[in-house]
């Protein structure tokens, strides 16, 4: 891709959960739910990596694992050259100063009993406790203006704001420490279309202004393509394809990516009518009993017998894209 050093490197990340087994006997071995099963990617400074997938693909688990909110089973997370797996609480605390998160439900991620000012000031109190109150207020106000909120609102409570404004508060809270990387977990999925556009524009503008790197997780391919430079497609805990946005959308290599792209309804009646749909057959397999070999083979229109035998490794193609499919 590029020869800059990555800000964040994830290698072979695995997040497995023990779930109650089907058998009711107390000595039955618990089963393993492989929410994330071997992901590797880099995030470079100032760029946006989009992560796309449908429900059950593990993207939310990934977001939380990257911040150690969920324990990681295996693999490594390297932040600015330092291995974070096995790191102690002080190292993670230091990381959280530079890596922040924006959540999906704009209202639920704000404590209903705190004012907007207190919410945005909280990261400052947590990581820079020595800052004088005056300075804290100044930074909070500056941040509010940056995200498009009027400073008169500083004493209001989250439930007095609309969904879009709540998301702006969430963004202000995430950016007040001027982090290097922001993980956005479906930040616009719960918003109306017109508000979605406002928030997307805002994020892109702030990214340019503040030189942020973003990991943008969503299920809406069109939104992800708009905001990202590179896109990773996930399915049932594994990466299917990772490519630059032009490569992914103009020439998708992996059958899953192709199916996803053809399934997006576009606001263009003539195109929709003549679209050749690549419908996926079957259902999403259970992550507790994933298919052998290639995890996508049960729904892949191009699957052959050999796909069941070996798990396809991610290979780099000449175009620079990385694909997990043995048929390409």
């Amino acid at each position, binding site marked *: 891709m590029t020869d800059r050093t990555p800000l964040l490197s994830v290698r072979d990340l695995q997040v497995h959960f023990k779930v109650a087994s089907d058998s009711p006997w107390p000595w039955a071995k618990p089963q393993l739910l492989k929410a994330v099963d071997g992901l590797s990617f880099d995030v470079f400074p100032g760029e946006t990596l989009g992560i796309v997938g*449908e429900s059950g693909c593990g993207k939310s688990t990934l977001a939380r694992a990257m911040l150690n909110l969920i324990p990681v089973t295996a693999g490594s997370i390297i932040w600015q050259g330092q291995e974070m797996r096995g790191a102690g609480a002080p190292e993670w605390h230091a990381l959280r100063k530079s890596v922040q998160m924006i959540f999906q439900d704009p209202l639920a991620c704000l404590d209903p009993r705190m004012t907007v000012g207190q919410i945005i000031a909280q990261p400052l109190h947590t990581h820079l406790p020595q800052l004088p109150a005056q300075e804290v207020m100044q930074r909070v106000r500056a941040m509010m203006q940056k995200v498009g909120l009027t400073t008169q609102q500083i004493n209001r409570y989250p439930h007095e704001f609309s969904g879009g404004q709540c998301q702006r508060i969430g963004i202000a809270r995430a950016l007040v420490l001027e982090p290097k990387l922001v993980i956005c977990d479906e930040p616009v999925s719960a918003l109306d*279309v*017109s508000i979605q*556009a406002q928030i997307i*524009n805002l994020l892109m503008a702030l990214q340019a202004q503040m030189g942020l790197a973003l990991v943008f997780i969503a299920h809406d391919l069109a939104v992800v393509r708009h905001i990202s430079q590179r896109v990773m497609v996930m399915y049932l805990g594994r990466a299917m394809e990772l490519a630059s946005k032009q490569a992914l959308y103009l020439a998708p290599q992996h059958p899953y990516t192709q199916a*996803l792209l053809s399934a*997006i*309804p576009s*606001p263009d009646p003539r195109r929709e009518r003549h679209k050749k749909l690549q419908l996926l057959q079957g259902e999403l397999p259970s992550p507790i009993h994933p298919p052998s070999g290639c995890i996508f083979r049960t729904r892949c229109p191009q699957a052959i017998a050999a796909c069941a035998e070996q798990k396809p490794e991610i290979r780099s193609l000449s175009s620079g894209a990385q694909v997990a499919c043995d048929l390409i």
Partner: protein
Amino acid sequence: MALLEVRNLNVQFKTLDGVVTAVNGLSFDLERGQTLGIVGESGSGKSQTVLAMMGLLASNGSATGQALLEGQDLLRLPPKALNSIRGNRVAMIFQDPMTSLNPYLTVERQMTEVLELHKGMTRRQARVRAVQALDAVKIPDAARRLAMYPHEFSGGMRQRVMIAMALLCEPDVLIADEPTTALDVTVQAQILALLRELQREHGTAIVMITHDLGVVAGLCDQVMVLYGGRVMEQASAESIFYQPTHPYTVGLLGALPRIGNDNPSLLAIPGAPPDMARLPSGCPFNERCQWREPQCVSQRPALTALPEKPDVWRACHKSAAQIQPLKPSPAP
């Protein structure tokens, strides 16, 4: 006479804040085999429209106007008569398939109930018909699945079951209230393809309510754009998507990130959807409109047809020529 004629539909709710008008002056015609898309964001009143027609409004809601199904006014029917039409000639599918299916009854029981009630079939006859219906919506192993409970199906499958149930009595009109919003995009594509196919086979008219313009583009012939409970623009899908004539429609289309579009900035409509208890005076969209004039605040524009294209109806003081798609404005 059209299959379904709605004239001047108003829906009001008595709340602690006073009377809230959720839907104001809605009219449309639906012919057999046609699909109407009702598009709007949250609070636009799109769901309340169809709930009123089906007699499913909350207890503090009331509807005025007319909703004529082949001459019969659905809003004025006594409950017994309305019951014989619901599920039979007008069927509805809802957004959340988990809560729309009774978790305590098997799928078979829920489907045979409809047939026994409206078609007077025996249990055995109804069961045969139910298996046929599940086959038609492409549920594999239909006979065995009939005995299962809703929680044993995935989201997409449950929605198929809902569609099967809705089509059991071969209704004239199928109302779909955001049927694919809660589903993954690949499952959504399957469901929409299914709806298209079933419509071709049975000639059912569909009223599709959604906030997703892409879904509308793929499925609908006619489109109605709602904002603040009122119709902003009403026209054929071709007109709406390729020649939008209302600022809100233009804004909605511009706000969508498109695969083919490389523009770095999206057209963001400033402001937020209105609080229905406190609608602005004049045009409900005026506070967010780029073309606003004093006239827009003082006087509400009436829904009028375009002189050159009588199929296109819009509620705006400015002429269609003056509403040109804007270049996206820079940040928020």
